[in-house]
């Protein structure tokens, strides 16, 4: 007040200091906002880097899984189909024509039996690679079939319900989704000790949703993320990498009632042309 009642030069000084103070304050606020944003961006860049590393782990896991799958098929063919066919060949050697008729017949029957076994074995290998129900009748039939088989074992109460699956997905997409479901169900059967497992399907907009409920020991999203970062264990990494290929999302959670676990899959639909 003293300054305001003084001469104009005093007021001028006050105005100059006041303006400078206000401008400093404004600059301070702006600098704070910008630096805060830069800090947030740096943090997000680090997160992105971690995400890339995670992707790399998933890719490696996927490659390793493919190799293991090939080795398994090779082992199946070499150890099972190979000896079977070799045995059949032994029965059908050149000496067969010199043998008695009864012995010839016995050898042919044995060889036929072995060849039938080999056919069955190859069919099983082929089915494990591409389930015929999935190829011919689609995801709904293959999944329902899978759950019926599990239920039929009597170990666990399993059921699947598709609410809205009028339009089939692209074959490659269906196979990937089926593999994810298979892996999830396998995990539940192996680790959760659940009494029931239930799958529900629905659609919303351009997305397909699948949710698996089970009442066993499960995991939540944070545990899934943690296990995904770990170098050991292929199952969950395979799920994550397949979901990634599908451009989808997967979410693990526990029901608020704490009585059962939920695993939700969100997949953008690519219909068959």
């Amino acid at each position, binding site marked *: 007040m003293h300054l305001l009642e003084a001469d104009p030069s005093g007021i001028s000084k006050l105005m100059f200091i006041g303006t400078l103070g206000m401008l400093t304050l404004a600059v301070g606020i*702006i600098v704070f*906002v910008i630096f805060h944003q830069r800090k947030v961006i740096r943090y997000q860049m680090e997160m992105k880097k971690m995400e890339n590393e995670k992707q790399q782990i998933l890719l490696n896991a996927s490659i390793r899984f493919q190799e293991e799958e090939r080795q398994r098929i090779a082992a199946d063919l070499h150890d099972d189909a190979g000896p079977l066919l070799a045995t059949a060949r032994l029965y059908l050697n050149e000496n067969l024509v010199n043998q008695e008729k009864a012995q010839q017949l016995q050898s042919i029957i044995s060889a036929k039996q072995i060849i039938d076994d080999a056919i069955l074995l190859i069919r099983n290998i082929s089915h494990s690679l591409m389930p015929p129900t999935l190829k011919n009748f689609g995801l709904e039939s293959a999944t329902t079939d899978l759950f019926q088989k599990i239920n039929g074992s009597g170990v666990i109460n399993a059921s699947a319900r598709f609410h809205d699956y009028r339009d089939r997905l692209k074959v490659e997409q269906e196979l990937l989704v089926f593999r994810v479901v298979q892996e999830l169900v396998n995990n539940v059967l192996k680790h959760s000790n659940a009494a029931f497992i239930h799958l529900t399907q629905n659609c919303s907009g351009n997305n397909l949703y699948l*949710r698996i409920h089970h009442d066993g020991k499960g995991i939540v999203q944070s545990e899934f993320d943690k296990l995904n970062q770990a170098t050991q264990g292929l199952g969950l990494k395979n799920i994550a990498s397949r979901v990634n290929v599908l451009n989808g999302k997967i979410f693990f959670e526990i029901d608020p009632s704490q009585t059962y676990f939920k695993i939700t899959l969100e997949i953008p639909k690519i219909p068959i042309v």
Partner: protein
Amino acid sequence: MCFYFIAFSKSYTNYILTLRLHVLFEYILITSFLYFSFINYKIKFLLISLLPIFIIYYIYDYFKNGNSTFGNIPTIIEFLIFILFIIIFFYESMQEDFQIVLYKKINFWLCVGFLFYTSGNFFYILLVEKFFNAQLSVKNQLILIYSIVTIIKNIIFSLSFLLKETPQITNNSISYAPDLDLEPTRTNTN
């Protein structure tokens, strides 16, 4: 500016009236800009609610003081409102799960320009009437401060329009479809 010069040439009353209209126009313009910049509806509502209150107060001030003053007190209130809302805008933008970096947004730099303008001219508007009878050299100093602040504001405005808003971060949340939960156990009411 042309409007100002026409008013200058006519009379002092027109000059005061033009200044008052300028403040009113400025308030409505900046309020509209801030209204569309905010996301929070409560803040939007508060901002728009202040508009008629300010206009009524401004008209009241005009009828009370007439042409004796250009209305520096309402202008100071206007500046305080804008400084407050600009700070709220910065806070809201910092909280937001942003797709575009804040300092790459046109709105941010426009707000920076307004903040410079309001804070830089705050004391000038507050004390301007004390300088009516001051020497020419003091008046020139005032005009210099006002001009520098206004030029900085205009440079910030011009540069802000050169910015390209490019998205940076994508949202990764899962949206659930309805009807996926377990069917509730039906209880027999009969």
